[in-house]
């Protein structure tokens, strides 16, 4: 005797098969994302080889005026950086130089790459989350809410705005972020109601202006 009736067992098996297939697809998807991310990083690095010298100030450097570059006063030559931490990527067209030249203002990349910027933001988000876990402060919660609002992750922005308002309901910023996020989520009525409630007990020019604008 089976524990399940046979047709039910077949259904359970089919369900299990579907679950396994979904798991497999999810893993495959995650793998593809990893590969794509790796490829993107590779592309970024090969476009900006100078960025790989991450921390020139960390080296024990000796500044030697270069006879060739005497005319450019800002140029310094760094001799033999320590082995640890340093990775110098090979330039695409030129051969590997004997010495590593510190970037001058002219040669420096004018703006940060968006991908690196995102990483920095995520890192700071992580720090904020850790900080909030430790201190549970209004200040950190509102920063996180602000971050998510800027990232257009509105549901998370709402969640953190609520969290911040729990810590200090008299602060306008949490209500404003809440209203903005709700509006972005297509719920302007909720946003208006929230601001109205806040303004009933507090006064804030920014909140009033936002309410008028909604």
């Amino acid at each position, binding site marked *: 005797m*089976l*524990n399940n009736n046979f047709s039910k*067992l077949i259904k*359970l098996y089919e369900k*299990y098969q579907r*679950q396994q297939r979904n798991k497999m697809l999810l893993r495959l998807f995650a793998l593809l994302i990893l590969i794509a991310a790796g490829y993107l990083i590779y592309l970024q690095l090969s476009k900006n080889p100078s960025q790989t010298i991450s921390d020139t100030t960390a080296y024990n450097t000796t500044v030697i005026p270069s006879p060739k570059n005497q005319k450019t006063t800002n140029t310094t030559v760094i001799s033999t950086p320590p082995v640890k931490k340093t990775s110098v990527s090979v330039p695409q067209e030129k051969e590997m130089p004997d010495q590593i030249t510190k970037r001058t203002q002219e040669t420096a990349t004018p703006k940060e790459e968006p991908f690196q910027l995102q990483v920095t933001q995520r890192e700071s988000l992580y720090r904020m989350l850790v900080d909030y876990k430790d201190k549970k402060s209004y200040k950190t919660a509102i920063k996180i809410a602000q971050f998510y609002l800027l990232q257009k992750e509105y549901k998370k922005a709402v969640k953190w705005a609520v969290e911040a308002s729990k810590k200090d309901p008299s602060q306008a910023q949490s209500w404003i972020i809440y209203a903005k996020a709700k509006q972005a989520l297509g719920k302007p009525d909720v946003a208006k109601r929230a601001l109205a409630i806040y303004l009933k007990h507090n006064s804030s020019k920014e909140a009033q202006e936002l309410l008028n604008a909604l």
Partner: protein
Amino acid sequence: MNYFADAKKLFYDDFDLSGYFDSLTFEYAKKQLIDAMKTHEVPLVFVLGNPGTGKSFLLNYIHQKVTSVKVAKYFTHPYFDEKEFLETLLSLAGKNIEHNEYSTEQLISRLKRAFGDLEYTVFIDEAQLLTEDQVELIRILSDQKIFQFVLAMHKKEGNYILSKDHFKSRTTKKIILEGLTDKEIGRYIESRLLSNNFSDIASLFKPSHIKFIKEYSRGNFRTTKKIVKTVLEILNIANRENYKKYSKLNKTTLTMAAIDTGLIDVK
């Protein structure tokens, strides 16, 4: 003709001694236990193993098949009142004992007179269920060398009981029953089927199927039997009711067996 229905009966979870299988761990445990019983030097022997590894089968096998050792009594469960336990043991000496006829101390001294030098062994299965008082009584009987006790119990609880003050300072022997290897699982299924004239079914089990069974049973003898019994039942129903897709032994039917036995949880 559908033979699966008959073949599955070979894998019922019972103590049928015809299902004896000489796995390495079982043979080793059997030898150790018989040696300990013959020498009678260790008053307390613990047979430890996870549920389904064959502890009860081992005790049952020695009780029924091994004539070179003396088993006074095999308690399949330790559900006994201490006095009844002593009275049962004393009645084995051929004495007709009325309940509460003697005090505990009198019963112990009578047991000593009756069994003191005869080197009998008492088997107690599921000994993890013994109460503190029962454990203490067993300790007294074994200390006085009236009986040698073999206590079969789950590994986890057994190690805990062994660490108690009752046994910490005493000479005890620990015999551990482990799980089967995949080769042993294959050999078990094959030998069980072949010896009962199911060679056509035995030939259906391929190494990949054995690997699957090992993976889900983790070498547990009882679970192995459960999976094989269930898969044979699935094949029986599928062949009888013409579910062609499920009428062969393969990963699908084995997975169904694992689902039915609860080894795979489908939420």
